[in-house]
């Protein structure tokens, strides 16, 4: 009888962005399970420990690129080393304020990344993603 809610992870060192992203998600999707991390390392630990068991529905991960201790790309490199069952549970979107074409290109070519989203995460973007 438990209801399955959509899961989201947000990895961004800017807590204001995270606040906004969470609000955007809640406004559009109502009750969801969303967690945000300002330290990418913590997020990796969390994924490693909490996604051992399969979840029914895929989890959406919004990942920033420009972070001090670990960039989004470095994060993805580490994420790549996880086991397939863990990786398969994620849809990863790069959520960045970057407008560097190199970043966008790089995101499009990374097989782990579903798409590149320019900040801010707002209703319009989310509606397109989750219809």
């Amino acid at each position, binding site marked *: 009888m438990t209801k399955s809610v959509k899961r989201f992870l947000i990895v961004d060192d800017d807590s204001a962005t995270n606040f906004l992203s969470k609000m955007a998600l809640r406004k559009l999707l109502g009750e969801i399970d969303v967690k945000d991390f300002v330290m990418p390392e913590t997020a990796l630990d969390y994924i490693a420990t909490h996604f051992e068991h399969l979840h029914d529905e895929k989890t959406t991960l919004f990942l920033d690129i420009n972070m*001090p201790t670990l960039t989004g790309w470095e994060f993805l490199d580490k994420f790549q080393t996880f086991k397939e069952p863990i990786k398969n549970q994620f849809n990863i979107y790069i959520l960045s304020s970057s*407008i560097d074409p190199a970043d966008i290109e790089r995101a499009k070519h990374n097989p782990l990344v579903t798409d590149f989203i320019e900040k801010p995460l707002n209703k319009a973007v989310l509606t397109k993603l989750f219809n």
Partner: protein
Amino acid sequence: MSWWGNYKQHVRDVIINNESDDQENVAYWRTTVFCEILTYLTPLSLIALIPSVYMAFTSEIYAVGIMDLFAFLVIVILTVVPGIKLEIRKGLFIFILCCLSLTLLYFLPLPGPGILFLLVVTIFSSLIYSSSAAYISATANTVICIGFAVLIHLDIQSPISSFYNVGSWIAVSSNLVLLSFACAKCLDLLLAGLTRSLEDNKISEVKLERANRLYQFVSQINQTIVHVKDKETLFLKSCEIALEFGNYKMAWIGGFNNAQKHITLLDSCGIAEDDIKLFTHIPYETKAAQTHVLRTGTHFLCNDVERTLANGDWKPFAVNHSIGSFIVLPIKKSGSIFGTFNLYAAEPNYFGVDDIALLEEVTGDISFALDLFEKAERHEEAEHQLQKNFEELEAVSNEQSAILNTLPASIALLDNDGNIVKVNEEWIQFGLSNGMQDTYPYLNANYIEVSEKSIGKEAEDGKHMAQGLREVLKGNKTYFTMEYPCDSPTEKRWFKAEVRPFKSILLTGAVVMHINITERKMAESEMLLLINNTEEAFILVDRNLEIVSFNNQFKNLYNTYFGKNIEKGVCILEYAQPEQKEIVASIYKKVLDGHVEESEIMIPGLDDTITYFSMKYSPAKDDSGTVFGAFVTATDITDKKKAKEQKEFERRNKEALINSTTDLIWSVSTDFKLLAANDAFIKEMKKFTGVDIKQGEDLLSFDNIPKESLKHWEVFYQRALLGEPFKTEIYNPPSPGRDESWIDTSFNPIIVNEQITGIACYSRNITERKKAENEQLRTSTALQRAVTDLNKVMDSSVDVICAVDADGIFLKVSAASKTVWGYTPEELIGTPIFKLVYQEDLEKTRVSSKTVMSGNQLNHFENRYVRKDGTLVTLEWNARWDAKDQIRYGVARDVSEKKRLQDAIENERQRFYDLFSDAPSSMGVLNGPDHVFEIVNPLYLELIGKKNVIGKTVKEVLPEAVDQGFIDILDSVYKTGKTFSSSEMLIKLDTLGTGQLVDKYLNFMYQAHRTEKNIIDGILFFAIDVTEQVVLRRKIEDSESKLKQAQSLLRISNWEIDLINYINTWSDECYDIIGWKREDLEPSLQAFLSLIHPDDFELANARVVETFQTYDAGSFSARIQTKIGDIKYVYCEWKFEFDINAKPIRIYGILQDITERKIAEEELTKITNDLFQRNRDLEQFTFIISHNLRAPAANIMGFTEYLQDDTTTPQEQKELLKGLATSVSGLDTIIKDINSILQAKREINDKKETIRFSNIVTNVINSIGNTIDKHHVTIKTDFDEVDEIFSLKVYLHSIFYNLISNSIKYRSLDKQTLIEIKSKRDKDKIILTFKDNGLGIDLNKKGDKVFGLYQRFHNHVEGKGMGLFMVKTQVEAIGGKISVASELQKGSEFTIIFEN
């Protein structure tokens, strides 16, 4: 008295010589006495010899004297001469004494001396021989006496017969005989006694020794037994001890091997192992001694091998090894015979009774020892077994512990008092995770007390737990369980505690187990939440119809309607209304059989209300599908029921309404069947078809309705089925019995769940209206015709006649519009006229239209229009305003053609003037003989630098030209009419009006202007200012001459190859370039190619090969090596020369030294690359800046979007505003950063000055002194080597400031922060190093980004990531380079190098 000693020793050596010195032997003593007699006799006899010899010779008894001397001589010889056997010595001694005594008796008148000597002989015999010898001597004495008596008696002439008669001789000699025998007897007794005591002594000594030996033997054996730990050593030692201490010749120990009937040698000593085979190689039955021992268990003794032993196999061996006696003793183990201890002695009769007793004791001890070893061995074995058992037990215990530890429950074992005896890992982990410290004393704590002492929320649960524990421990309960919440600091948790009694051999107590049931609890609570929050009421009963569970709704429901509380465990039937019990029971029966039942019950309320319930009974099944009870849901359907009734009521009303209308209302299914219809429709249909149509009947298959008509309907229906609602008029032509009719019908698709399921149709008879309309139509037709005529008139007009309303909308347009505007009247009507007006004329058109509308007649108003094909058309209007109808009438004529002609003339004029004024040459017309300027173009005015020349004479305008002869030329042209022309003529003009004449070179022409009558009335002049060209050409000429000079300097040389004779010719410059002397290098292609650098050779050679194939001109650049080894870049180019048959005859070419150009090119490439890199940096900088600008900007966008959102709550608004403020200030910060970066790039223009590093450090320390003090930072500086630099102070300060504050910001928190700043000079470089012991940077990961903008490497410290970027920018701005070396947790070192 050494000579006496020596003498004595000598005598002793001579006499005793090799005789044994067995002092216990009597013979030894006799020999010693003999030796002593001789020792002392020699000197004594010498003393007696002198008087006796003297007396004998004086008394003339010579025989006696000679005898004395002879006797003395013999004694001396016997005493001192070695090599004489002792027996001979003794015999000679007695013999000489006898001879002497006989001589003395015979010759001396006195019997004394002779008799004395005879007696001495007897005594000596006894001493040096034996007692029997003494008797012989006494008897000899008697014979001598009797002989002498006979001599005397017979009175034979002799001295003795002269002295004695028989009587007196007998008297004398009888004494001698008597004394001789007496002495013999006495000495015999004496010596016999001595000898016996000596021998007795010896025997007892031997006995003592043996006893000692045996005791030694026993004691050694015993000691060995004590020390030795195993039998092998014991056997070895026993044998060794037997030989060493027991003095046996041989000893060995054998064991009986009962299975093989063999004796096994266990150990031996003193006997070769081969010899023992005599015993061990033969079955032991045949061995008497061993068998005896085995059989009897007592020892076997043989004290005289030679005599008593039966001749066995080893008897010869025993005899050979001179074994006199032996004993075989039994050795026992655990009471039975184990083996034998065999001892062999050299002497016979070696084993006495005592020996045997002791030996038996020894073997007894050995047996005892063997038993002891056996015991020890068993003990050890037992211990080993015990150890093994223990280990196994421990392994089992560990395994059990491991199992316990892997259980996901916290488990503890308690003793009877509730003390914790043992816990598993999880228990400890649980304690730790609940904030217990590492040292949490879980063992031995009393768990009952611990539970009881729980505080806070857990106090009550703790008491409950304690109570449960007590009861289980007391034995009142066999099981206690409770569930309790126990939240960790981070999450909500529930645990289930279980207590069970525990009993083992060691411990009686209880096992406590805590299981985390959070998940279950959460699920339960979620479930409960769901169950209790649903509107339905649930109840679950078991097979006995006893209530198992129900939710709050059910409880409330029952309570509300029946005023009773239902309870679990009670039969559901108890709660049914008495009259319904049976029905209810039957329902349940069916349900329990697996059927699903439904019922509706009606419960009258207190206030006339009725509540309806829908009951659903489902069988409750477990996982295997077995029905274990019934699950009942009750839903209050009162509202639904009421709604249904209401709906029904409404439906009837609607139906009545629908049926009361005469309009037709019906609906059609997708396959054109009637779904529903009102009475009017059915009636109408009956009228048409004569059939009472019913629901479900096909609407398109009526026999008496024309197919055509039905087809129309089908088309309508199908159109509606495509989803389009529409309305249409349908005309039914008159048919027999029916008038024509019109119906207005609307079709609406019925959409259910986005699917078209049918069509709702509504139809109204509009025949009456239609007829009225048609009538009206007919009356207006006549009018229409009049209008048409008018239209025809209008349309035949070439001019456009039109009517527009107040807004300029065309109401009516004549057909001419098509030719004038390109639009048909139909296209124009309804559109505004202004749309057609050309943009430029719009304003004036509006103004004029207003004029018209204010009541003025407008005539000949011109404006332009854009035709349909895009061309312009000019119209001339006459217009009038009809104020009554508010209509503007107008007639427009196309005047474009007229207009165009006018424009063409104007254009032509203008073109001519433009040509004149824009002509690239100065020109003009002079009028009259005075050369008055009639017209000039601007270029001419520009040339002469004057204005307002028209009407003035040339003389007035250009006074300077008079002297230069120009007026004369003009006069001449005017007079003669001959054209004058000149090129590059110098004229000096005061173009600036300063009186300063400027050189102008002109190509000019004066041409006479003639009237139509060919009379000269003026001069046309044309002048082209070629000053610039002339000056330029002069310059070119100048530079050309210079070029010629330069070319010689350009180091271009030439060479050629005569292809007919193959002669190579190189110019001197060629040799200069390649750096060889003509005499050193013969010119040839090979010689040249050999000079080419190996790296370029291939390319150059390829060109050469290619050119000889194609005979095309060619070239290449290559490096060559000069004679002295320099590298030069050369460019070589050549061409072929051919004869008339196109055969190549010559190659001629150049060789140019392009080294300098090449170097310059390389530098250029470097600069280009550098620029490229800078450009990319700049681009990157832009991206970074824009990214960082975008980040807060994006947030601001987000915040504002949600601030505007209607759903945002005031609380959210507050948070959003806060976030907005943060983002805005972030944006501000970044803009300030950018500003400071840009400023940094500008400040480069500041002045450089001499700066002291020490001053800068002092300044920085002063400015951030607080921080330095606060964090106890030590800054060490060393500027001894160089303390000054010529640079920009602002930058240097900023660099020092940023590096120092960075070091403080990223200091290590567990070390005292130390910053070392040092300067060094290396040639003309100044090197600054900044070293700290801070956190450091992982250069492997971040090396390329250290100096990047907005790069940060530590999360904990607030930083903008700008410091190092600024440092790098500034260092580079003042011509330095910065690098970094760093190691994580060790520190960083920044090195800045300034090149002077």
